[in-house]
């Protein structure tokens, strides 16, 4: 019964996908005309090509990533010994996270979370 059910699901799923794709194709308005393709700027036409580069700030993003990543790297072994060590481990981890949070706040102040 199980192989039959699986095959039925596959056939039904594929059939519905094919039907849906044919139907969606019928709804498609077709190729847009040149005025329809223009991005909306309030009635003005764009004058430059859409290929434009902006500074994605990989360096500051990498620093932020490291802040979070280091946190996780130390949290795994910490979680293993947490029950044995008790409150001392908790306090130590809080101190560590506080230092990392200061780093994140510094990156924030430096504009690492802004677009350009």
């Amino acid at each position, binding site marked *: 019964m199980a192989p039959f059910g699986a095959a039925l699901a596959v056939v039904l799923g594929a059939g519905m996908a094919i039907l849906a794709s044919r139907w969606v194709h019928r709804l498609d308005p077709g190729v847009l005309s*040149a*005025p329809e393709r*223009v991005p909306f700027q309030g009635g*003005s036409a764009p*004058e*430059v090509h859409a290929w434009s580069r902006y*500074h994605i700030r990989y360096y500051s993003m990498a620093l932020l990533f490291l802040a979070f990543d280091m946190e996780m790297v130390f949290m795994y072994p910490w979680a293993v010994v947490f029950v044995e060590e008790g409150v001392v481990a908790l306090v130590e981890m809080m101190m560590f996270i506080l230092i990392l949070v200061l780093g994140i706040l510094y990156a924030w102040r430096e504009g690492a979370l802004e*677009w*350009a």
Partner: protein
Amino acid sequence: MGLRAGLVRLAAGGEVPVFSVAGLGGRVVVEELGAVPGIEVVDHPRAAALLVVVGRVPPGLLGPVLAVHDQLPSPRASVWWPVGADGGVPGPALAAALPGLVVGRSGDVNGLRRLFADMLDGGHPTDPAALGDIDPAPWRGVGPYGHGGTGMTGGVPYGRPMAGRAPDRDRLELDQLPLRFGPLFPPFPPGLVLELLLQGDVVQQASVGDNRFRTEAGTPVSTTLDTDLFLGALDHPVLVSDLELARARHHLRWLARVLRLHGLSGRAWRTLALARCLTAADAAAVTALTRTVGRSRSMASALRGQGVLEDPGTVTGGPVARAGGEPADARSGDDSYRGLGFEPVTHPAGDAWDRLRQRLGEAAQAMALVERAGDRVRAPGPPVEGPRGLIAAGLRPPSSSLLELLPDLLAGQEWGDAVNIVASLDLDLEEAAQDGSPGLAGATTPGAGFAWRPGMSPDGGPQGSRPGVTRSPVAPTENEP
């Protein structure tokens, strides 16, 4: 077919998505259209089914209106509403360009609903495109994969020049994108064209494009302004209470615009409803509203410190100058206001938040003056304190001097703050177009002080970027190694 008819009826009963365009004198009607239940005024033509044009379209707006019309997805329809004394017929140019244009009655919302239902039903044919299907920059790729040819930087891929480069915040040479917003950009006042150099969302340089409410010869198009009552007070006796009521109404309308910009549509519509039928008895409602908005923390945090006016003395009166601590107000020296206990409201910081608080304070003050003035008549002669600034014979209209502040205020701002700053100045391009002084001619020339790159059309209308406009190729020496 029962299913189809049912679906059509269901869709026709829903909200009618409308993209609205304010022509001459149509701004108030357009704004009140958004407050009507069953009509959804959308900010993008792709989301609209109907294009509603209110008032005559000046020649400078015709191209953008047609471009926006063609961006409405099919099925679409266009409606024209007359305003005031424009004869009830759209201009011949608009009627010729849009043969399917339906001429309606101003404010006839049920007509819009019927047209929408008719259009979904197939009774009203969809509007044909007004502009030809001509690609302004046809694909001109070269090489085995047609990837455009002369490099990724500074080339002309697909026939369009690429953005030039300039140092960014981190002093890296990156692309600076020239963009022209307007004249039908919904967050801006109707007719405002801003030419911006953007890097990411930072406005590096801004300049004001040519005023679309002027004719091609540069003369103002005749129109009725929203400050007509104040202009008339220059040489006719007017009730002081009428003037102050008009001032409060003006500030409330402005507040509704700003509230909508901040996403507070519900409160914006209530403010607009209050402004529409404002009477002397509404003083308490105005005070309550101004108190609520003045306490808004989210608006304060968005507006505080934005667009600080360094020298408010350069603006001749008006809330913008007084929000910067300049107590200039023509009513202080006006005999008709003597004994009413008038004292100009001022705020110290001169930023967008203080401009908001200034107008809130002036609206509440105007309502108090209405109560105290009784049937006192203002004698014509002395300059009038309009809701945007000083109005006097031979003086430039307040909007045109406020427009000149924009380039300095916008440079270095992020996009969202720039939109807030534009709104905080309460600009009216129709009023600015009435300026006859030669000083503004430089500011309204397209691209004045704006590093427009070669190959760009000088007029910005969709016609400007048609083939046939010569595009000088950018030298390939800027290519990256």
